[in-house]
């Protein structure tokens, strides 16, 4: 009870509530615009949040992160264009329902499934918090190194069919992170005697280039389009009643979202695909999937909305981001000297619970906003894509330049913008670069610390007094299993 009151007192401030409202409403609007997405918005807003209190900045970013997928469902259902990439599966069943004249039913179901997924995940994590607080101290340098390594491994392997490209780009991220003055021996690495490289390359500059500027260039170069939408008539509450008839699908899909969200490097896509295939396999009407199945729509939306709260777990408990958006949020923590990791769970549990309560409130806020303003959002979807490109490029400047008023940062960001544009055009993944940068830094620091206490390889898993390090052993086994499963899958594919 004391913990709850303490957490509520952190949130009971006008600026936190304002950030929550602006973040969640802004997130829905951004999510609803195809071609923008939460990553672009968070990248642009990151530097602006640095001048705010950590809880204010984080609730604003959490608002965008947690609500963008709600908004992304609207164009996915109504015009067959996902607002955010993770709403892609929603088009499979949402759009056929719209074509069959059931647009209102589909939108209503998407909202209720998203809400169910979000609330389910938050409740799971609030209940899990004491367990996590007990486990978190078992993570020392060795375990965090292994968890970061597992994260990068999963990110690479999750890009099926592009594993080599993802590996190359993750290593590129690791390399970028090493540029500049090395922090222990103070020797220069890959600076080529250029003073502007001595300080290294800032993560936020790279993020803004790869996500915001690249997206602006893409929208400006490609053909202009302005989607046309039809207004949704009638109330949108019926979806909740229909969802009750599909409790099992909603619960299983949300559970997939929670589990996949907690594993670094896995995230929404895997959660969605797994929950969708499970729903299809266990459905009484699997033939309807892809043709307007309510179960398909529920499984997709419940799973993707359950991921954001769960993805905060590795970030808060271990300081390990599982995907690009949480990697961006990590920088907000660092700027405010709040170091996520086991100590945060042990010493500032009220802060952690406050973040979860904020997520809970934002889900309610978003739902209320959506139930009454869907038709208003349809106008936003109709903004022409090149106009969006102009706006994003203008906004990207604020993000980069406000960091330290450096034209060099802007040039670097523009360079990464062009790089990201090429990656997007060629369909190669961007996320491994960001995770390579963040997790590469963590791996270097933690391995170096670990090695002070490790004389031989077995010391990684056994203390000098003979005590086992169970978490390190489990992580090592999981790493071996992941690699073995991947190799086995490849061999099966070759045989087939």
């Amino acid at each position, binding site marked *: 009870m004391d913990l709850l009151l303490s957490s509520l007192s952190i949130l009971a401030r006008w600026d936190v509530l304002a950030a929550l409202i602006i973040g969640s409403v802004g997130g829905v609007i951004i999510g609803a615009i195809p071609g923008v997405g939460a990553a672009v918005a968070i990248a642009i807003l990151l530097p602006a949040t640095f001048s705010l209190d950590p809880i204010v900045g984080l609730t604003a970013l959490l608002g965008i992160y947690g609500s963008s997928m709600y908004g992304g469902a609207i164009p996915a259902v109504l015009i067959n264009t996902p607002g955010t990439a993770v709403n892609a599966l929603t088009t499979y069943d949402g759009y056929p329902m719209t074509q069959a004249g059931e647009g209102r039913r589909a939108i209503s179901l998407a909202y209720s499934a998203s809400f169910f997924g979000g609330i389910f995940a938050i409740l799971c994590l609030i209940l899990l918090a004491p367990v996590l607080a007990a486990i978190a101290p078992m993570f020392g340098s060795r375990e965090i190194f292994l968890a970061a390594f597992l994260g990068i491994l999963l990110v690479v392997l999750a890009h099926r069919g592009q594993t080599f490209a993802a590996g190359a780009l993750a290593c590129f991220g690791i390399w970028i992170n090493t540029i500049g003055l090395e922090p222990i021996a103070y020797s220069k690495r890959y600076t080529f005697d250029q003073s502007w490289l001595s300080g290294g390359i800032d993560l936020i500059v790279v993020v803004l280039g790869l996500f915001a500027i690249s997206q602006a260039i893409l929208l400006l170069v490609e053909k202009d389009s302005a989607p046309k939408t039809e207004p949704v008539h009638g109330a949108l509450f019926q979806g909740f009643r229909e969802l009750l008839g599909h409790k099992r699908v909603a619960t299983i899909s949300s559970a997939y979202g929670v589990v996949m969200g907690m594993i670094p490097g896995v995230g929404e896509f895997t959660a969605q695909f797994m929950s969708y295939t499970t729903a299809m396999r266990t459905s009484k009407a699997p033939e309807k999937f892809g043709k307007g199945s309510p179960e398909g729509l529920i499984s997709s939306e419940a799973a993707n909305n359950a991921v954001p709260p769960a993805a905060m777990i590795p970030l808060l408990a271990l300081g390990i981001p599982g995907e690009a958006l949480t990697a961006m949020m990590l920088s907000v923590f660092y700027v405010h000297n709040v170091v996520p990791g086991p100590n945060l769970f042990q010493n500032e549990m009220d802060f952690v619970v406050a973040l979860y309560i904020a997520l809970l409130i934002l889900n309610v806020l978003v739902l209320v906003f959506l139930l009454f303003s869907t038709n208003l959002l349809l106008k936003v979807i109709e903004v022409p894509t090149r106009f969006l490109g102009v706006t994003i*490029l203008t906004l990207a400047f604020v993000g980069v330049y406000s960091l330290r008023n450096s034209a060099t940062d802007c040039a670097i960001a523009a360079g990464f913008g062009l790089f990201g544009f090429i990656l997007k055009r060629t369909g190669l993944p961007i996320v491994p670069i960001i995770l390579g940068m963040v997790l590469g830094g963590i791996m*270097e620091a933690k391995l170096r610390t670990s*090695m002070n206490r490790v004389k031989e390889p077995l010391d990684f898993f056994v203390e000098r007094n003979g005590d086992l390090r169970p978490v390190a052993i489990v992580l090592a086994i999981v790493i071996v299993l992941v690699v073995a499963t991947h190799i086995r899958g490849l061999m099966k594919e070759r045989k087939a």
Partner: protein
Amino acid sequence: MADKLDVQEPEKPGAMLFMIAFCLISVVLVLYLGDQTKFSAKGKFFAQPRVWPAVGVIGMAAFSAAYVLQRIRVQRTGEISEAFLWLRGLEYVAWFMIYVWAVPRVGYLPTTVIFAIILAFRVGYRETRTLIAAGATGFAIVLVFKTFLGVKIPGGAIYEYLPTTIRNFFILNF
């Protein structure tokens, strides 16, 4: 339905060209490893400044080479036309850098409004309504970020020519 659920995407034009260039640059970076990083005789291997850059560049070279070797025999078209399209992206990088150059001189508000209108014109919008909307969007961005959120963007040198009574106001807010 099964094909819809397949997460593997076919290779898009330009991917091979990009990965070949990426591989070549990675090999050059590997060759520079000894020159650009240090390895001292003392100290543990994993604490050496060279280790992680080596992991990065060798990984880049190895993975990109594997990608190229795995797919080199696939017939593909449109690589060169795609490369020309990448060059079109350079134009917008140039626009962005002109904007960056102009802000400390002309001021954030005037530069942003002018930039948004000119860029909107450049990408094909000719209707007055759209151009006004672009200018208004630029104005709104300045208002939100500089005036209300107070992000650190210096006032333009041009503001020095404003009358004293409004100079500070402009430097602080626009």
